[in-house]
């Protein structure tokens, strides 16, 4: 992993969890859902109840990696008039109130449109840790390598059950902070169990030299977190939190985070 001189905020958060004998808990929320302040409040509730890293997703018109729950939330955020630049207010709002590392998850076109350098500068200024990029592979990421190095941001790329050994090695090497292991061939969404493919992906990433691998897609319960903790450094929960936020509000998000956190203790 390329971590040379840059101190990775998400790596630090995951290592802190490791030093405490825990699996890192990473929680996803869409920016601007239900509104900007609501996102900040829900993220702070996540952090206060045990999330080590917060992932804020930018609502995008064409989210090909997202399932129905997250699509519905991001569509609502866009209909409410969410603007991309508000993600920096959200990141700053969260980092000013809690210690969690805050990553932004975004499809690539909104970043391109603002300008990769400009986007990166503003994210760093807001206290953001870096980006998770579901539709940007290292092969196309030259501009992002440059900007993320310049502003000291993490670049979290995805690896999948279908990644070849060559691509796994290349993607692990390109990543900073952690590697996002997609647990299943599919899109985001709560599932009753974590795919058995997840462990193989994580093992392949470790074998390729990844120090920190976190598992996402289909992770929704404390039991899943516990299971993943046996072989990975972190578990990423999205859809379950978004559904809870939509149905029951901020307090319920905090409660679910605490419940998920109960699964982070490694035996």
């Amino acid at each position, binding site marked *: 992993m*390329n971590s040379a001189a840059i101190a990775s905020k998400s790596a630090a958060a995951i290592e802190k969890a490791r030093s405490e004998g825990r699996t890192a808990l990473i929680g996803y929320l869409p920016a601007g859902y239900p509104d900007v302040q609501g996102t900040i409040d829900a993220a702070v509730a996540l952090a206060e109840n045990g999330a080590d890293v917060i992932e804020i997703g930018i609502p*995008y*018109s*064409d*989210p*090909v*990696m997202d*399932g*129905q729950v997250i*699509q519905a939330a991001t*569509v609502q955020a*866009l209909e409410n008039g969410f*603007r*991309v*630049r508000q993600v920096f207010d959200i990141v700053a709002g969260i980092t000013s109130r809690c210690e969690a590392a805050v990553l932004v998850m975004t499809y*690539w*076109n*909104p*970043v*391109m*449109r*603002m300008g990769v350098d400009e986007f990166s500068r503003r994210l760093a200024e807001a206290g953001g840790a870096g980006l998770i990029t*579901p*539709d*940007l*592979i*290292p*092969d*196309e*990421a*030259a*501009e992002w*390598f*440059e900007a993320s190095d310049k502003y000291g941001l993490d670049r979290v*790329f*995805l*690896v*999948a*059950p*279908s*990644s*070849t050994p*060559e*691509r796994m090695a*290349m*993607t692990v*090497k*390109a990543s900073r902070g952690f590697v996002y292991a*997609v647990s299943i*061939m*599919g*899109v985001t969404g709560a599932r009753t169990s974590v795919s058995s493919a997840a462990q193989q992906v994580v093992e392949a990433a470790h074998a390729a030299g990844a120090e920190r691998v976190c598992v996402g897609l289909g992770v929704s319960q404390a039991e899943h977190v516990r299971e993943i903790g046996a072989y990975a450094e972190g578990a990423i929960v999205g859809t379950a939190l978004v559904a809870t936020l939509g149905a029951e509000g901020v307090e319920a998000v905090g409660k679910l985070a605490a419940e998920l956190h109960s699964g982070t203790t490694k035996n």
Partner: protein
Amino acid sequence: MTQSPETPDAGEKPDAADAFLSGGSLRHAPGPYFGNYGGRWMPESLIAALDELQDTFDKAKADPEFIAQVAELNRNYSGRPSLLTEAKRFSAHAGGARIFLKREDLNHTGSHKINNVLGQALLAKRMGKTRIIAETGAGQHGVASATAAALLGLECVVYMGAEDTRRQALNVARMELLGATVIPVTAGSQTLKDAINEALRDWVANVHTTHYLLGTAAGAHPFPALVRYFHEVIGDEAREQILAQTGRLPDAVCACIGGGSNAIGIFHGFLDDPSVELYGFEAGGEGVDTDRHAATITLGRPGVLHGARSYLMQDEDGQTIESHSISAGLDYPGVGPEHSYLSDIGRAKYEPVTDSEAMDAFRLLCRTEGIIPAIESSHALAGALRVGKKLTSGKQNPQDVIIVVNLSGRGDKDVATAAEWFDLLDGNSPEAEIGAEGEQL
């Protein structure tokens, strides 16, 4: 295309424009990049499938048996070669330039789409896949995909915006008659681009058994080069036919552009003939001074959508803007990356044609040639009238100007829309109601 992250090279992609300007060839551009366009802006989960497709395609192109298989289907199933018909009475309205129509409307299923679906369905079989998925707007590509699937014994699922499935009920029935399953897409704006999103989601989940049969020369590498390959037959035939009929190359070639598959197919035959001007006509909708159009190259700016970097209709935040056109087949906010490149280097010119101009050309072709064109193709016809007047201007012998137009599809599907447009229906008839909804029968 894998490169070490330590050696980024964005912005330094080899510029083939230099090669062309210094006498090199623009034909058979392999991708993944066309100048600064193209590439693979795709989830990692799908990269292995794109690599598999690329590998299968490369081997197939070099395999005489595959080439013979495609040629046999083109000849004995699609009805190729398609005719090149001189439109003598229509020509009088183009300043007297001689206009020749490349008759893709005469192919089986009524448009150029069949060329690509047969080729890709054969590739799917070579990869051992048993299921194809496709997106469709009005239903043309969905019907073509369902046709290929029926012919070759593949399961077929077509994603279509929920609103479109209601408006295009007869095309849904067509696909179902051919054995396909049509899934209405209720996500996002419920249009063609959302149908593509949903097909991509299906593909990620089912990639082991499923080939995504993309309908246009856009998307992630290798799709732009692959879809073009199967449509190159249009340009190859047209070039040979125009030489046989007139003894020389045309002055201009005109095509309509949505994603751009028919256009890239016919352009390809003439790319290395610098004397032949290439024109792509985008859907200008209600006008490029309104926000209801699909003039992607004319008014868009580069961005990434559905896997490729290309011109894109997007807002200040990089959100995709919904396109509008009377022609469902051109109603797409993106465009194939090779067109973006050909536009930037000036090899092809891209101009908007409004709904109204297209419908005038539609009626003109009906009445002067006895051919009902697709509304998509009518954009190319309207453009050809414009180009004809320009090229013949001040000429003693306007008939010395020769223009080839790709008549990419027939207009049977557009009769209700046209009848509504020209007010041919009793206002209380069910057909009028359907036409008002943009139905294409």
